[in-house]
Protein backbone atom coordinates (compact mmCIF):
# COMPACT_ATOMS: atom_id res chain seq x y z
CA UNK A 1 0.00 0.00 0.00
CA UNK A 2 1.26 3.48 -0.84
CA UNK A 3 2.18 5.73 2.06
CA UNK A 4 -0.84 7.92 2.76
CA UNK A 5 -0.20 11.50 1.73
CA UNK A 6 0.97 13.82 4.51
CA UNK A 7 0.35 17.52 4.14
CA UNK A 8 1.85 19.33 7.08
CA UNK A 9 -0.01 22.63 7.39
CA UNK A 10 0.74 23.48 11.01
CA UNK A 11 3.97 25.42 10.64
CA UNK A 12 2.85 27.94 13.24
CA UNK A 13 2.96 25.10 15.79
CA UNK A 14 6.40 23.94 14.77
CA UNK A 15 8.41 23.29 11.63
CA UNK A 16 10.42 20.47 10.14
CA UNK A 17 14.15 20.90 10.66
CA UNK A 18 15.86 21.95 7.43
CA UNK A 19 18.33 19.22 6.35
CA UNK A 20 21.10 21.85 6.09
CA UNK A 21 20.42 22.83 9.70
CA UNK A 22 20.53 19.24 10.88
CA UNK A 23 23.78 18.62 9.03
CA UNK A 24 25.38 21.64 10.65
CA UNK A 25 24.25 20.49 14.12
CA UNK A 26 25.36 16.88 14.00
CA UNK A 27 29.13 17.25 14.61
CA UNK A 28 28.40 19.15 17.81
CA UNK A 29 26.91 16.05 19.41
CA UNK A 30 29.79 13.65 18.96
CA UNK A 31 32.83 15.38 17.47
CA UNK A 32 32.93 18.96 18.73
CA UNK A 33 31.22 18.17 22.00
CA UNK A 34 33.32 20.42 24.22
CA UNK A 35 31.89 22.77 26.82
CA UNK A 36 32.04 26.27 25.34
CA UNK A 37 33.39 27.68 28.63
CA UNK A 38 36.58 25.57 28.62
CA UNK A 39 40.07 26.62 27.57
CA UNK A 40 41.24 23.78 25.35
CA UNK A 41 40.72 23.71 21.61
CA UNK A 42 37.78 21.31 21.72
CA UNK A 43 35.86 23.72 23.95
CA UNK A 44 36.99 26.73 21.97
CA UNK A 45 35.52 25.23 18.83
CA UNK A 46 32.17 25.12 20.59
CA UNK A 47 32.68 28.68 21.72
CA UNK A 48 33.43 29.80 18.17
CA UNK A 49 30.31 28.01 16.92
CA UNK A 50 28.19 29.89 19.48
CA UNK A 51 29.62 33.20 18.34
CA UNK A 52 28.97 32.43 14.70
CA UNK A 53 25.38 31.55 15.55
CA UNK A 54 25.05 34.77 17.55
CA UNK A 55 26.15 36.77 14.54
CA UNK A 56 23.64 35.05 12.26
CA UNK A 57 20.77 35.43 14.73
CA UNK A 58 21.57 39.12 15.22
CA UNK A 59 21.78 39.86 11.47
CA UNK A 60 18.11 38.97 10.88
CA UNK A 61 16.95 41.86 13.08
CA UNK A 62 19.78 44.34 12.57
CA UNK A 63 21.17 43.79 16.07
CA UNK A 64 24.75 43.51 17.27
CA UNK A 65 25.89 39.94 18.06
CA UNK A 66 26.61 40.98 21.64
CA UNK A 67 22.94 41.84 22.10
CA UNK A 68 21.79 38.25 21.50
CA UNK A 69 21.48 35.80 24.42
CA UNK A 70 20.56 32.17 23.91
CA UNK A 71 17.75 30.57 25.90
CA UNK A 72 16.02 27.22 26.18
CA UNK A 73 12.90 28.39 24.30
CA UNK A 74 10.84 31.33 23.12
CA UNK A 75 8.86 30.94 26.33
CA UNK A 76 11.99 31.42 28.39
CA UNK A 77 12.94 34.52 26.39
CA UNK A 78 9.49 36.00 27.14
CA UNK A 79 9.91 35.21 30.83
CA UNK A 80 13.34 36.86 30.89
CA UNK A 81 12.02 40.01 29.24
CA UNK A 82 8.98 40.45 31.48
CA UNK A 83 10.23 39.16 34.81
CA UNK A 84 13.77 40.39 34.35
CA UNK A 85 12.72 43.92 33.44
CA UNK A 86 9.91 44.29 35.98
CA UNK A 87 12.03 42.91 38.82
CA UNK A 88 14.95 45.18 37.96
CA UNK A 89 12.83 48.34 38.27
CA UNK A 90 10.90 47.20 41.31
CA UNK A 91 13.21 48.89 43.78
CA UNK A 92 12.59 52.24 42.07
CA UNK A 93 8.88 51.78 42.76
CA UNK A 94 7.88 51.43 39.11
CA UNK A 95 5.40 48.62 38.93
CA UNK A 96 3.36 48.92 35.76
CA UNK A 97 3.44 46.58 32.77
CA UNK A 98 1.41 46.99 29.58
CA UNK A 99 0.62 44.11 27.26
CA UNK A 100 -2.33 43.00 25.12
CA UNK A 101 -5.25 40.62 25.54
CA UNK A 102 -4.13 38.28 22.79
CA UNK A 103 -0.51 37.50 23.57
CA UNK A 104 0.85 33.97 23.63
CA UNK A 105 0.48 32.29 27.07
CA UNK A 106 4.26 32.67 27.49
CA UNK A 107 3.61 36.39 27.94
CA UNK A 108 0.06 36.34 29.33
CA UNK A 109 0.70 33.80 32.07
CA UNK A 110 3.93 35.56 33.00
CA UNK A 111 2.02 38.85 33.27
CA UNK A 112 -0.53 37.13 35.51
CA UNK A 113 2.25 35.75 37.69
CA UNK A 114 3.70 39.26 37.99
CA UNK A 115 0.28 40.56 39.03
CA UNK A 116 0.31 38.01 41.86
CA UNK A 117 3.68 39.43 42.94
CA UNK A 118 2.09 42.86 43.20
CA UNK A 119 2.83 44.38 39.79
CA UNK A 120 0.08 46.22 37.91
CA UNK A 121 -0.72 45.01 34.42
CA UNK A 122 -2.86 46.68 31.76
CA UNK A 123 -4.14 44.43 28.96
CA UNK A 124 -4.73 46.60 25.89
CA UNK A 125 -7.51 45.37 23.57
CA UNK A 126 -7.19 44.45 19.90
CA UNK A 127 -9.74 45.08 17.15
CA UNK A 128 -11.57 42.52 15.01
CA UNK A 129 -8.61 42.10 12.68
CA UNK A 130 -6.38 41.37 15.66
CA UNK A 131 -4.53 44.69 15.53
CA UNK A 132 -3.63 46.37 18.80
CA UNK A 133 -5.44 49.61 19.63
CA UNK A 134 -2.60 52.16 19.47
CA UNK A 135 -4.58 54.92 21.15
CA UNK A 136 -5.52 52.67 24.06
CA UNK A 137 -1.90 51.60 24.31
CA UNK A 138 -0.62 55.17 24.41
CA UNK A 139 -3.30 56.18 26.93
CA UNK A 140 -2.32 53.27 29.18
CA UNK A 141 1.25 54.52 29.62
CA UNK A 142 1.63 56.34 32.92
CA UNK A 143 4.21 57.58 35.42
CA UNK A 144 5.26 54.20 36.71
CA UNK A 145 5.05 52.20 33.47
CA UNK A 146 8.23 50.20 32.93
CA UNK A 147 7.57 48.05 29.92
CA UNK A 148 5.23 47.54 26.98
CA UNK A 149 5.13 44.00 25.54
CA UNK A 150 3.29 43.45 22.25
CA UNK A 151 3.79 40.45 19.98
CA UNK A 152 5.09 41.16 16.48
CA UNK A 153 2.62 38.77 14.84
CA UNK A 154 -0.07 36.59 16.33
CA UNK A 155 0.31 32.82 16.31
CA UNK A 156 -3.37 31.93 15.80
CA UNK A 157 -4.57 34.47 13.26
CA UNK A 158 -1.28 35.73 11.84
CA UNK A 159 -2.04 39.44 12.17
CA UNK A 160 1.11 41.61 12.04
CA UNK A 161 1.22 44.39 14.60
CA UNK A 162 2.27 48.00 13.96
CA UNK A 163 5.58 47.39 15.67
CA UNK A 164 7.34 50.52 14.38
CA UNK A 165 4.50 52.74 15.64
CA UNK A 166 4.48 51.03 19.02
CA UNK A 167 8.25 51.43 19.21
CA UNK A 168 7.91 55.13 18.44
CA UNK A 169 5.25 55.63 21.10
CA UNK A 170 7.31 53.79 23.73
CA UNK A 171 10.46 55.70 22.89
CA UNK A 172 8.72 59.07 23.05
CA UNK A 173 7.16 58.18 26.42
CA UNK A 174 10.39 56.81 27.83
CA UNK A 175 9.22 53.23 28.44
CA UNK A 176 10.87 50.02 27.26
CA UNK A 177 9.41 47.96 24.43
CA UNK A 178 9.56 44.18 24.22
CA UNK A 179 8.14 42.20 21.32
CA UNK A 180 7.45 38.48 21.23
CA UNK A 181 8.63 37.82 17.67
CA UNK A 182 8.53 34.04 17.92
CA UNK A 183 6.13 33.85 14.96
CA UNK A 184 7.51 36.83 13.08
CA UNK A 185 11.26 36.33 13.30
CA UNK A 186 12.65 35.23 9.94
CA UNK A 187 9.21 35.52 8.38
CA UNK A 188 9.03 39.31 7.98
CA UNK A 189 11.51 42.18 8.02
CA UNK A 190 12.31 43.37 11.55
CA UNK A 191 14.88 45.94 12.58
CA UNK A 192 15.45 46.65 16.24
CA UNK A 193 16.88 50.13 15.65
CA UNK A 194 14.40 51.37 13.07
CA UNK A 195 11.52 49.95 15.12
CA UNK A 196 12.85 51.07 18.52
CA UNK A 197 12.68 47.56 19.94
CA UNK A 198 14.49 47.13 23.27
CA UNK A 199 13.94 43.39 23.71
CA UNK A 200 12.80 40.70 21.28
CA UNK A 201 12.03 37.00 21.78
CA UNK A 202 12.56 34.34 19.13
CA UNK A 203 12.54 30.58 18.87
CA UNK A 204 14.41 28.17 16.58
CA UNK A 205 11.63 25.66 15.95
CA UNK A 206 9.42 28.13 14.08
CA UNK A 207 12.11 28.72 11.44
CA UNK A 208 13.09 25.14 10.55
CA UNK A 209 15.48 24.90 13.47
CA UNK A 210 15.39 22.50 16.43
CA UNK A 211 12.93 22.60 19.32
CA UNK A 212 14.01 23.69 22.78
CA UNK A 213 16.28 26.56 21.81
CA UNK A 214 15.54 30.26 21.51
CA UNK A 215 17.12 33.62 22.04
CA UNK A 216 16.43 37.06 23.36
CA UNK A 217 17.74 40.32 21.94
CA UNK A 218 18.47 42.83 24.69
CA UNK A 219 19.52 46.34 23.64
CA UNK A 220 23.05 46.96 24.85
CA UNK A 221 23.21 48.69 28.20
CA UNK A 222 19.83 47.39 29.35
CA UNK A 223 20.10 45.67 32.73
CA UNK A 224 17.69 42.90 33.70
CA UNK A 225 17.49 40.73 36.78
CA UNK A 226 18.42 37.20 35.64
CA UNK A 227 15.64 34.63 35.86
CA UNK A 228 18.03 31.67 35.85
CA UNK A 229 21.10 32.05 38.05
CA UNK A 230 24.11 29.79 38.13
CA UNK A 231 27.47 29.55 36.42
CA UNK A 232 27.22 32.90 34.68
CA UNK A 233 26.98 31.84 31.05
CA UNK A 234 25.64 34.27 28.46
CA UNK A 235 27.25 37.19 30.32
CA UNK A 236 25.40 36.26 33.47
CA UNK A 237 22.05 36.81 31.84
CA UNK A 238 21.19 33.14 31.39
CA UNK A 239 23.17 30.56 33.29
CA UNK A 240 23.40 26.93 32.24
CA UNK A 241 25.83 25.14 29.91
CA UNK A 242 24.94 26.26 26.40
CA UNK A 243 23.03 23.84 24.17
CA UNK A 244 25.72 24.03 21.49
CA UNK A 245 24.11 21.78 18.83
CA UNK A 246 20.76 23.51 19.31
CA UNK A 247 22.27 26.99 19.13
CA UNK A 248 24.26 26.03 16.04
CA UNK A 249 20.97 24.86 14.52
CA UNK A 250 19.28 28.15 15.42
CA UNK A 251 22.14 30.11 13.86
CA UNK A 252 22.04 28.14 10.63
CA UNK A 253 18.25 28.36 10.43
CA UNK A 254 18.49 32.15 10.90
CA UNK A 255 21.16 32.43 8.22
CA UNK A 256 19.05 30.47 5.75
CA UNK A 257 15.99 32.55 6.55
CA UNK A 258 17.73 35.86 6.08
CA UNK A 259 19.24 34.77 2.81
CA UNK A 260 15.98 33.60 1.26
CA UNK A 261 13.29 35.56 3.10
CA UNK A 262 12.08 37.78 0.29
CA UNK A 263 11.82 35.02 -2.27
CA UNK A 264 10.30 32.55 0.18
CA UNK A 265 7.72 35.07 1.35
CA UNK A 266 6.65 35.75 -2.20
CA UNK A 267 6.18 32.01 -2.76
CA UNK A 268 4.25 31.63 0.50
CA UNK A 269 2.05 34.65 -0.22
CA UNK A 270 0.98 33.14 -3.53
CA UNK A 271 0.03 29.86 -1.88
CA UNK A 272 -1.65 31.69 1.01
CA UNK A 273 -3.77 33.79 -1.38
CA UNK A 274 -4.83 30.70 -3.31
CA UNK A 275 -5.65 28.72 -0.19
CA UNK A 276 -7.64 31.53 1.44
CA UNK A 277 -9.55 32.41 -1.74
CA UNK A 278 -10.11 28.74 -2.51
CA UNK A 279 -11.51 27.92 0.91
CA UNK A 280 -13.71 31.01 1.05
CA UNK A 281 -15.18 30.30 -2.37
CA UNK A 282 -15.65 26.54 -2.04
CA UNK A 283 -17.01 26.28 1.51
CA UNK A 284 -20.30 28.03 2.29
CA UNK A 285 -20.64 30.01 5.52
CA UNK A 286 -16.99 30.32 6.26
CA UNK A 287 -14.96 33.38 7.20
CA UNK A 288 -11.34 34.43 7.41
CA UNK A 289 -10.12 35.40 10.88
CA UNK A 290 -7.42 38.00 11.39
CA UNK A 291 -6.42 40.73 8.98
CA UNK A 292 -7.24 40.19 5.29
CA UNK A 293 -3.82 41.44 4.10
CA UNK A 294 -1.63 42.39 6.98
CA UNK A 295 -0.77 38.86 8.07
CA UNK A 296 2.18 36.49 8.14
CA UNK A 297 2.80 34.98 4.70
CA UNK A 298 1.93 31.38 5.58
CA UNK A 299 -0.99 32.03 7.88
CA UNK A 300 -4.54 31.05 6.90
CA UNK A 301 -7.20 30.98 9.61
CA UNK A 302 -10.91 30.44 9.31
CA UNK A 303 -14.16 29.82 11.12
CA UNK A 304 -16.86 27.49 9.80
CA UNK A 305 -20.47 27.80 10.90
CA UNK A 306 -22.01 24.76 12.63
CA UNK A 307 -18.78 22.76 12.68
CA UNK A 308 -16.64 22.03 15.72
CA UNK A 309 -12.90 22.52 15.35
CA UNK A 310 -11.58 19.41 17.04
CA UNK A 311 -13.74 17.17 14.85
CA UNK A 312 -12.52 19.08 11.85
CA UNK A 313 -8.87 18.57 12.81
CA UNK A 314 -9.42 14.84 13.48
CA UNK A 315 -11.14 14.29 10.14
CA UNK A 316 -8.47 16.26 8.29
CA UNK A 317 -5.86 14.11 10.02
CA UNK A 318 -7.55 11.04 8.56
CA UNK A 319 -6.93 12.63 5.15
CA UNK A 320 -3.29 13.20 6.09
CA UNK A 321 -3.64 16.96 6.68
CA UNK A 322 -2.14 18.40 9.89
CA UNK A 323 -3.95 21.53 11.06
CA UNK A 324 -5.02 23.08 14.34
CA UNK A 325 -7.98 24.78 15.99
CA UNK A 326 -8.75 27.16 18.82
CA UNK A 327 -11.96 25.41 19.77
CA UNK A 328 -12.56 24.71 23.44
CA UNK A 329 -12.39 20.99 22.94
CA UNK A 330 -8.86 21.27 21.68
CA UNK A 331 -7.54 23.55 24.37
CA UNK A 332 -8.25 21.01 27.09
CA UNK A 333 -10.40 23.57 28.88
CA UNK A 334 -14.01 24.48 28.27
CA UNK A 335 -13.19 27.87 26.81
CA UNK A 336 -12.19 28.53 23.25
CA UNK A 337 -8.93 30.28 22.46
CA UNK A 338 -8.39 33.63 24.21
CA UNK A 339 -7.17 35.06 20.89
CA UNK A 340 -10.49 34.43 19.16
CA UNK A 341 -12.32 35.86 22.19
CA UNK A 342 -10.01 38.90 22.12
CA UNK A 343 -10.89 39.73 18.52
CA UNK A 344 -14.56 39.66 19.47
CA UNK A 345 -15.73 36.30 18.13
CA UNK A 346 -18.54 34.58 20.02
CA UNK A 347 -17.98 31.23 21.72
CA UNK A 348 -20.18 29.69 19.04
CA UNK A 349 -18.05 30.99 16.19
CA UNK A 350 -14.76 30.22 17.90
CA UNK A 351 -15.66 26.55 18.29
CA UNK A 352 -15.54 26.26 14.50
CA UNK A 353 -12.05 27.66 14.04
CA UNK A 354 -9.30 26.17 11.91
CA UNK A 355 -5.72 27.29 11.35
CA UNK A 356 -3.71 26.17 8.34
CA UNK A 357 -0.17 27.54 8.40
CA UNK A 358 2.08 26.99 5.40
CA UNK A 359 5.86 26.87 5.52
CA UNK A 360 9.01 26.28 3.54
CA UNK A 361 8.28 22.64 2.83
CA UNK A 362 4.78 23.17 1.47
CA UNK A 363 4.10 23.14 -2.25
CA UNK A 364 1.32 24.24 -4.58
CA UNK A 365 0.29 20.57 -4.67
CA UNK A 366 -0.32 20.72 -0.93
CA UNK A 367 -2.66 23.66 -1.48
CA UNK A 368 -4.45 21.69 -4.21
CA UNK A 369 -4.84 18.73 -1.90
CA UNK A 370 -6.23 20.81 0.99
CA UNK A 371 -8.65 22.55 -1.37
CA UNK A 372 -9.73 19.16 -2.67
CA UNK A 373 -10.34 17.59 0.75
CA UNK A 374 -11.46 20.39 3.08
CA UNK A 375 -14.91 21.17 1.58
CA UNK A 376 -15.95 17.53 1.84
CA UNK A 377 -14.76 17.25 5.42
CA UNK A 378 -16.73 20.35 6.43
CA UNK A 379 -19.80 19.09 4.57
CA UNK A 380 -19.56 15.73 6.29
CA UNK A 381 -19.54 17.32 9.74
CA UNK A 382 -22.37 19.66 8.81
CA UNK A 383 -24.45 16.72 7.64
CA UNK A 384 -24.43 15.38 11.19
CA UNK A 385 -24.74 18.76 12.89
CA UNK A 386 -28.09 19.61 14.51
CA UNK A 387 -27.34 23.32 14.12
CA UNK A 388 -26.61 23.34 10.38
CA UNK A 389 -29.57 24.70 8.47
CA UNK A 390 -27.90 24.36 5.06
Amino acid at each position, binding site marked *: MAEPRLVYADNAATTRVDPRVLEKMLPFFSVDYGNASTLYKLGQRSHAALEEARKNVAAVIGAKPGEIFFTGSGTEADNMALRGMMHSKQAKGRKHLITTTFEHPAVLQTARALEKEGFRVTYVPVDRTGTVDLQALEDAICEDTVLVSVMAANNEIGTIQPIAEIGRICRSKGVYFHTDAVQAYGHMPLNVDEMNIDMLSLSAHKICGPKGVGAIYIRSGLMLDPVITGGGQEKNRRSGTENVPGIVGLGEAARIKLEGMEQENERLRKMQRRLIDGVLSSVPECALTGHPENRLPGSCSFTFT*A*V*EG*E*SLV*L*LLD*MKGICASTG*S*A*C*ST*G*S*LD*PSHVLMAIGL*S*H*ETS*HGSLRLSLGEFNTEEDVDYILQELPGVVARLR*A*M*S*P*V*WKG
Partner: protein
Amino acid sequence: MLYSEKVMDHFANPRNVGEIPDANAIGEVGNLKCGDIMKIYMKIEDDVIKDVKFQTFGCGAAVATSSMATEMVKGKSVKDAMKLTNAAVMEALDGLPPVKVHCSVLAEEAIKSALANYYKNQGIDPTPIIGCTGECEHCHGEHDHTTDKE
Protein backbone atom coordinates in the same frame (compact mmCIF):
# COMPACT_ATOMS: atom_id res chain seq x y z
CA MET B 1 -4.67 13.75 24.76
CA LEU B 2 -5.25 10.46 23.09
CA TYR B 3 -8.49 8.76 22.10
CA SER B 4 -8.93 4.99 22.27
CA GLU B 5 -9.31 3.03 19.04
CA LYS B 6 -12.99 2.51 19.84
CA VAL B 7 -13.56 6.24 20.19
CA MET B 8 -11.80 6.89 16.90
CA ASP B 9 -13.82 4.14 15.22
CA HIS B 10 -17.13 5.62 16.42
CA PHE B 11 -15.94 9.10 15.45
CA ALA B 12 -14.80 8.08 11.98
CA ASN B 13 -17.75 5.75 11.33
CA PRO B 14 -20.55 7.00 13.55
CA ARG B 15 -23.52 4.62 13.89
CA ASN B 16 -27.10 5.89 13.64
CA VAL B 17 -26.43 9.37 12.30
CA GLY B 18 -29.43 11.27 11.01
CA GLU B 19 -33.02 12.20 11.74
CA ILE B 20 -36.20 10.14 12.08
CA PRO B 21 -39.02 12.06 10.36
CA ASP B 22 -41.80 10.34 12.33
CA ALA B 23 -39.96 10.13 15.64
CA ASN B 24 -42.17 10.02 18.69
CA ALA B 25 -39.41 10.98 21.10
CA ILE B 26 -36.89 13.76 20.58
CA GLY B 27 -34.32 15.04 23.03
CA GLU B 28 -31.73 17.77 22.74
CA VAL B 29 -29.06 18.73 25.28
CA GLY B 30 -26.02 20.98 25.43
CA ASN B 31 -25.62 24.41 23.95
CA LEU B 32 -23.53 26.14 21.33
CA LYS B 33 -21.67 28.21 23.85
CA CYS B 34 -20.20 25.10 25.48
CA GLY B 35 -19.48 23.66 22.08
CA ASP B 36 -21.54 20.46 22.27
CA ILE B 37 -25.10 19.83 21.16
CA MET B 38 -26.62 16.39 20.92
CA LYS B 39 -30.02 15.71 19.44
CA ILE B 40 -31.58 12.25 19.68
CA TYR B 41 -34.55 10.97 17.70
CA MET B 42 -36.39 7.79 18.69
CA LYS B 43 -39.14 5.71 17.21
CA ILE B 44 -40.68 3.87 20.14
CA GLU B 45 -43.32 1.16 19.67
CA ASP B 46 -44.81 -0.90 22.51
CA ASP B 47 -42.29 0.65 24.89
CA VAL B 48 -39.42 -0.67 22.76
CA ILE B 49 -36.92 1.59 20.98
CA LYS B 50 -37.34 0.37 17.41
CA ASP B 51 -35.07 2.97 15.90
CA VAL B 52 -32.79 5.70 17.19
CA LYS B 53 -30.74 8.36 15.39
CA PHE B 54 -28.60 11.27 16.44
CA GLN B 55 -27.18 14.56 15.26
CA THR B 56 -24.23 16.04 17.11
CA PHE B 57 -22.26 19.24 16.98
CA GLY B 58 -19.12 18.74 19.00
CA CYS B 59 -15.69 17.26 19.35
CA GLY B 60 -14.54 13.72 18.55
CA ALA B 61 -15.68 12.45 21.94
CA ALA B 62 -19.10 14.07 21.58
CA VAL B 63 -19.67 12.28 18.27
CA ALA B 64 -18.31 8.96 19.57
CA THR B 65 -20.37 9.00 22.77
CA SER B 66 -23.53 9.87 20.83
CA SER B 67 -22.87 7.01 18.45
CA MET B 68 -22.15 4.54 21.24
CA ALA B 69 -25.12 5.64 23.35
CA THR B 70 -27.53 5.14 20.44
CA GLU B 71 -26.05 1.69 19.83
CA MET B 72 -26.54 0.80 23.48
CA VAL B 73 -30.24 1.69 23.62
CA LYS B 74 -31.31 0.50 20.18
CA GLY B 75 -33.82 -2.34 20.46
CA LYS B 76 -34.03 -1.95 24.24
CA SER B 77 -37.18 -1.40 26.24
CA VAL B 78 -37.70 2.12 27.52
CA LYS B 79 -37.22 0.83 31.04
CA ASP B 80 -33.82 -0.71 30.20
CA ALA B 81 -32.72 2.30 28.18
CA MET B 82 -33.38 4.46 31.21
CA LYS B 83 -30.63 2.59 33.05
CA LEU B 84 -27.97 3.85 30.63
CA THR B 85 -25.18 5.63 32.48
CA ASN B 86 -22.32 7.78 31.28
CA ALA B 87 -19.94 5.32 32.94
CA ALA B 88 -21.32 2.49 30.79
CA VAL B 89 -20.92 4.59 27.63
CA MET B 90 -17.34 5.40 28.59
CA GLU B 91 -16.55 1.80 29.38
CA ALA B 92 -17.95 0.65 26.06
CA LEU B 93 -15.59 3.12 24.36
CA ASP B 94 -12.56 1.87 26.35
CA GLY B 95 -12.46 5.11 28.29
CA LEU B 96 -12.18 8.82 27.56
CA PRO B 97 -9.53 11.42 28.42
CA PRO B 98 -10.45 13.20 31.69
CA VAL B 99 -11.36 16.48 29.95
CA LYS B 100 -13.83 14.60 27.77
CA VAL B 101 -15.81 12.84 30.48
CA HIS B 102 -18.49 15.52 30.21
CA CYS B 103 -19.27 14.27 26.68
CA SER B 104 -20.39 10.92 28.09
CA VAL B 105 -22.53 12.76 30.64
CA LEU B 106 -24.09 14.68 27.79
CA ALA B 107 -24.78 11.46 25.86
CA GLU B 108 -26.57 9.95 28.86
CA GLU B 109 -28.58 13.15 29.27
CA ALA B 110 -29.46 13.20 25.58
CA ILE B 111 -30.92 9.67 25.74
CA LYS B 112 -32.84 10.51 28.92
CA SER B 113 -34.08 13.75 27.46
CA ALA B 114 -35.56 11.82 24.50
CA LEU B 115 -37.17 9.31 26.87
CA ALA B 116 -38.60 12.16 28.96
CA ASN B 117 -40.04 13.62 25.79
CA TYR B 118 -41.63 10.25 25.05
CA TYR B 119 -43.44 10.30 28.39
CA LYS B 120 -44.42 13.94 28.00
CA ASN B 121 -45.91 13.20 24.61
CA GLN B 122 -48.21 10.76 26.38
CA GLY B 123 -49.17 13.26 29.05
CA ILE B 124 -47.03 11.62 31.74
CA ASP B 125 -44.75 13.73 33.94
CA PRO B 126 -41.30 12.16 33.38
CA THR B 127 -39.55 13.75 36.34
CA PRO B 128 -40.42 11.10 38.95
CA ILE B 129 -39.46 8.35 36.49
CA ILE B 130 -36.29 9.75 35.00
CA GLY B 131 -35.24 12.45 37.41
CA CYS B 132 -33.30 15.44 36.28
CA THR B 133 -32.32 15.22 32.62
CA GLY B 134 -30.20 18.31 32.62
CA GLU B 135 -32.96 20.09 30.75
CA CYS B 136 -34.64 21.71 33.68
CA GLU B 137 -33.83 25.31 34.48
CA HIS B 138 -32.70 24.86 38.07
CA CYS B 139 -29.70 22.69 37.29
CA HIS B 140 -28.50 24.55 34.22
CA GLY B 141 -24.89 25.46 34.54
CA GLU B 142 -24.35 23.62 37.78
CA HIS B 143 -24.38 19.98 36.79
CA ASP B 144 -21.35 17.96 35.94
CA HIS B 145 -20.03 19.99 33.01
CA THR B 146 -17.26 21.63 34.94
CA THR B 147 -16.41 19.18 37.68
CA ASP B 148 -14.36 16.91 35.48
CA LYS B 149 -12.09 19.68 34.24
CA GLU B 150 -8.72 18.00 34.77
